[in-house]
């Protein structure tokens, strides 16, 4: 799995940080998303998918790799 974030789309709802704090964080100055781990381990995949699904601004993209 590879994770991409589209920072200009982010609205700082913070839900990805609640669900997958090892993968997502927020910038101090405006709460926009910061990607901590673009290739998270398998144990985090469900949380990352849930984060992408819940993101209200479609700012998280998950590329599933074989």
């Amino acid at each position, binding site marked *: 799995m590879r994770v991409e974030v589209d920072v200009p789309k982010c*609205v700082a*709802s*913070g839900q990805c940080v609640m669900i997958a704090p090892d993968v997502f964080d927020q910038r101090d100055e405006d*709460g926009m998303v910061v990607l901590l781990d673009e290739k998270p381990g398998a144990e985090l995949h469900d949380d990352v998918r849930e984060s992408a*699904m819940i993101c*209200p*601004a479609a700012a998280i993209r998950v590329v599933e790799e074989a």
Partner: protein
Amino acid sequence: MTETLAETTPHSDEPIPAYPMPRASGCPFDPPPAAQALHDELPVAKVRMWDGSTPWLVTRYGDGRALLADPRVSSQSTLPGFPHPNAGFRENAERRRSFIAMDDPEHARIRRMVTAPFAIKRVEALRPSIQKITDELIDGMLAGPNSADLVSALALPLPSLVICTLLGVPYEDHEFFQEKSSLMINRYSSAEDMIGASDALTDYLDELIGVKLAEPADDMLSELATRVGSGELTRREAASMGVLLLIAGHETTANMIALGTVALLENPDQLAVLRETDDPKVVAKAVEELLRYLTIVHNGRGRVALEDIEVGDATIRAGDGIIIYTGTGNRDPELFPEPDRLDIGRDARRHMAFGFGVHQCLGQPLARVELQVVYGTLYRRIPTLRLATGAGQLPYKHDGLVYGVYELPVTWDA
């Protein structure tokens, strides 16, 4: 002759239902039966508003979610066709524009000026002080007779104190701003009352921003004042943002605390789980479920179509008003099995109680922490808490743009 009739749209022989719709008596937590019927049978339907206008009511989760995220759907309340809840809102749209009534990129530019304090880490850092305020308010309840109005004793002061500290608004003015707020979010306020309240609050925030310009402090109004100083915002725009943050910051959470408590007291098996746990994950899950189950923003979310949009069998035309009704969407049985049951153990995170799309609630991390603290504390500290009147007799906010109870008489074993 019959050929002509056959060309009419399905269901057009039925009268257009009036909106908003009443809840069923005896079912204070459930969406109105008429909205539920549309959800089940005609999920994109015209409804008739107070002014005779006929926007579309969108009642299903998937349709609502798609429209709230669709850039062809506008939040600009100054556009013709926008469904206003009352005459005051319609008149005020031109007078006091805030970022919730703007589209990107203007909306994003302004919203980002106020997102930093609501970041997860910043809000988590407030948790100890939110806990302390909650404990003190409960101490106050326990120090008096073994009965109280939970709204005035805890539900309203807690979020009011928190948002006042965050913004830099003196809490001693709470009677003034709470009264004006309630006029602004009442469906049946006259245009005069609504605009009078809006102007009074805007003037009040304008004055506070003047104070912060002269003497900056470590709070959000001072931050907004800095942006006035640098020319990024006019003082009136900053005041208008202050009004929005102040109202949204206390009314919504207050209603969730009180109405959530009613729902839990009416579901004692669920309340027992909260009373007996010290696991923050259990409490956090319960918060999401109560947000879903109650969906207190019960007037729906108004929008207007910028282009023709196909939704299911319906075509929403450019210029048509749209109301996305999340109360029924959050009861979608495919996402939430047995949706009418309060089940604090379920995974309810995909609810749309905070809306969806770029306008999704800015303050949701703060609301979550406040609710986690209250639901995780109140029933443990007052385990015999119960209603002092039947749940059917409570003064529900049927007239509010945000649902809740005006008063919540409770009692407990001394």
